[in-house]
């Protein structure tokens, strides 16, 4: 597949952790198996939480730009988002979800988490 490289850095192996995910290539269908229903529900809930987290993080950055926050407040906000970020990653791992799974295709509106 090297003929598909249009632009590659010399240290290409930095990208090598990208394991192809076969299930991605197959259509995602709702499966009635109880375990996958639970995973599907977790996926949906975590997607919404992730959306809110990103919105709030951007809002926080805007408030910092506005210069209305004290250093102390900025630090506390930052801590909160850092913790949230870490917790989200743990939850994803727990349910076997990748970052890309936490997204919804809204058809003509594009993806929910398409910044």
């Amino acid at each position, binding site marked *: *597949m090297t003929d*598909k*490289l*249009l*632009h*590659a*850095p010399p*240290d*290409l192996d*930095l*990208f090598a952790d*990208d394991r*192809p995910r*076969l299930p991605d*290539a*197959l*259509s995602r269908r709702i499966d009635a198996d109880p375990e996958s229903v639970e995973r599907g529900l977790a996926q949906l809930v975590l997607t919404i939480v992730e959306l809110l987290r990103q919105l709030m*993080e951007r809002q*926080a*950055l805007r408030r*910092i730009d506005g210069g209305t926050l004290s*250093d102390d407040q*900025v*630090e*506390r*906000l*930052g*801590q*909160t*988002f*850092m913790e949230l970020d870490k917790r989200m990653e743990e939850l994803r791992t727990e349910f076997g979800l*990748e*970052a*890309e799974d*936490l*997204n919804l*295709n809204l*058809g003509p509106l*594009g*993806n929910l*988490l*398409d*910044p």
Partner: protein
Amino acid sequence: MIELYAITDHPTPPLPQVAPLRLVATGDLAAICAPAGDDGVSADALWRHEAVVEALMEQRDLLPVRYGTRFDDEDAAARAVEARRDDLAMALDRVRGAVELSLRVIEPGAPQAGDGASYLRDRRRQEDARRALHEPLAAVARAAMTRPSPDRSELLRAAYLVDRDAVEQVTGLIAQLQAANPTLRLLCTGPWPAYSFAEA
């Protein structure tokens, strides 16, 4: 069982001899299929499917069909195309004359924030860097989409729908962006069938 590879215009140039391909025409659209193998799901089967779609796209505009889409017979495939004719025709128009390029950008050794303020500063810096890369590319592409990154070291994961004759221009731009951002690593692959833009 038959497996679907692509939806394309009808009539279409002669099919390449990469698989026992058959054309199932309904009006001015056609589905390109082949007898489904029974070798099960595997990475190899996925790449074989991809190779067929890529051979097909050399000669024609098409909507790539996701691996694993199967029908009982050609009549069933024709009915499925017929049922979504308008959507498919519109989607085919969107990707006509274009291919997909994929871009990933990583920042090796991205700093791990220890405190809250530097965490937010890193977010801001990464967001700015990501914009500075994505916006000029999105401007020359016909359409663009980004996907969530698996971790903080990956700044950007995007797909661009690019006119076939603009591929060189875009890769040139990517080389410039790489030169302007020596601490980042840009990986661009393609041209791919327009998987990310083929949603009908």
